[in-house]
């Protein structure tokens, strides 16, 4: 089976800015993949290169084995991109927009699929409304529909839920998950880390044009041992020797940094010796946000 996306040795400069520094990345067909990173990390540049909106200075990118520069016709036919910015053509209605977009991909008589898209994205009653008259969220849905008119194998969403209300977010994710279960490869960038954690099987973290972490979501979470220990103690309070681990206290509840699970026993031992009574205890598992923050700050100090 050919890989969905193959990126090799890609460099991209904008003047003196080295936006991508020799990026290598392979995404298999059927994956649900997240590209994370702070603003300016190179996520959108990477997507623009894949989509042919930019050209690499060095290296190559392939979509389903088709080089995005040399075999641009086949590459672009296999790829659907939802851009980050809300853009629209104010001259047309929703249906006209989608019919025209189909035509650009060489498709006529695409009405059945367009109707399905309109229905799945809750746009049916807006089909004949001019784009100008739609709310921001509605325009975002049309962008998603536009990216899918040609039923691309690989779907790239650049921050699809930025500034989008809860209802649309749910509609959108249900739809995207459904497409993924039908075998479509999904690549997304997002600022909402919980979305990546919930939906994506694999994650790449980008920083300053380089990949600083690449693994399955599960492994990333497991490799991160730091947990939070919440302890509610009686009036004896927290022993002095545990102070260095203290993050903050809310009344008699103390939130401690737990470097690894192995330390738990030692901590409990210290408390027992101090004579304090534990009234409540809980462990908080790390989430992607902790890992993200940790990886980003680690790299900064190197």
């Amino acid at each position, binding site marked *: 089976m050919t890989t969905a996306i193959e990126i090799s040795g890609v460099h991209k400069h*904008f003047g003196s800015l080295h936006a991508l520094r020799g990026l290598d990345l392979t995404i298999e067909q059927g994956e649900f993949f997240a590209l994370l990173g702070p603003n300016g990390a190179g996520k959108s540049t990477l997507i623009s290169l894949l*989509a*042919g*909106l*930019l*050209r690499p200075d060095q290296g190559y990118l392939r979509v389903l084995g088709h080089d995005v520069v040399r075999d*641009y*016709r*086949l590459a*672009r*036919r296999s*790829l659907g*991109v939802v*851009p980050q*910015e809300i*853009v*629209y*053509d*104010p*001259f*047309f209605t929703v249906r*006209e927009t989608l019919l*025209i*977009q*189909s*035509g*650009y*991909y*060489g*498709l*006529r008589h695409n009405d059945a699929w367009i109707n399905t898209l309109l229905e799945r994205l809750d746009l049916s009653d807006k089909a004949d409304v001019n784009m100008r008259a739609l709310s921001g969220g509605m325009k975002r849905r049309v962008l998603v529909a*536009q990216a899918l008119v*040609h039923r691309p194998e690989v779907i790239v969403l650049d921050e699809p839920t930025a500034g989008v209300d809860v209802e649309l977010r749910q509609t959108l994710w249900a739809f995207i998950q459904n497409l993924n279960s039908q075998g479509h490869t999904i690549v997304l960038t997002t600022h909402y880390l919980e979305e990546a954690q919930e939906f994506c099987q694999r994650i790449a973290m980008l920083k300053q044009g380089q990949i600083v972490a690449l693994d399955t979501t599960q492994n990333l979470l497991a490799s991160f041992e730091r947990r939070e220990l919440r302890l509610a103690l009686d009036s004896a309070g927290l022993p002095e020797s545990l102070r260095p681990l203290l993050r903050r206290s809310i009344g008699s509840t103390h939130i401690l940094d737990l470097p690894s699970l192995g330390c738990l026993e030692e901590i409990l031992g210290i408390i027992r010796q101090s004579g304090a009574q534990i009234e409540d205890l809980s462990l908080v598992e790390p989430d992607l946000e902790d890992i993200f923050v940790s990886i980003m700050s680690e790299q900064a100090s190197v």
Partner: protein
Amino acid sequence: MIGFSTLFYKELLRFWKVSFQTVLAPVLTTLLYLLIFSYVLSKRIEVYPGVSYTAFLIPGLVMMSMLQNSFANSSSSLIQSKVTGNIVFVLLPPLSAMDFFGAYLAASVVRGFMVGLGVLLVAQIYALTPPVHIFWAIVFGLFGCGILGCLGIIAGVWAEKFDQLAAFQNFIIVPLSFLSGVFYSIHSLPPFWRQMSRFNPFFYMIDGFRYGFFGLSDVAPQQSLLIVAASFLGLSALTIGLIHRGYKLRG
């Protein structure tokens, strides 16, 4: 082919949906030129023997409005798409440089001809005699609109802001078209300016177009045709090359 025809159709629809501004308004503007200049000058000048100034003026104004609107169509469509960002809708699909070029060019030519026909129609208040060589008029119309359509694509692709496009239009297109012999025969000019006019490609478009109407022209129509056709082919090659390289479209 479907990609090209869809983009062409979209470009037609784009200006047709605002035809008040893109077709009727230029027809009215040109009519005003015609009314004023013919009123002021018709009794004083006879450019060609047996051809009144008003009759002389009409084909020139028709062609000038065709040229200006062809330029306006491709250039304003592209700059609007670039400024609003919806240019991605035509950059993401597998459209070739030829599809892109052909569609914007053809729509420009269509708009040019619609405005030109509109001007001709309202100019019938002056009971114009029908063109002597309609074929020549159409050929020059096609090449002229084609050249300006190309220039419009180049300007639209090059400009990043509306004022850059306005500069291209006001400092290049408008002077070249006003100084091309729309309002006068270059034979009435002092020798220096007569000579200068021969370096203006717009002069050959207007002169050749006018030949189609009267069978009379400042230079031989074959010469004009050669220059106009060569300009069109050269500009087309340049435009296709720019689009193919992704100049200012794909960084």
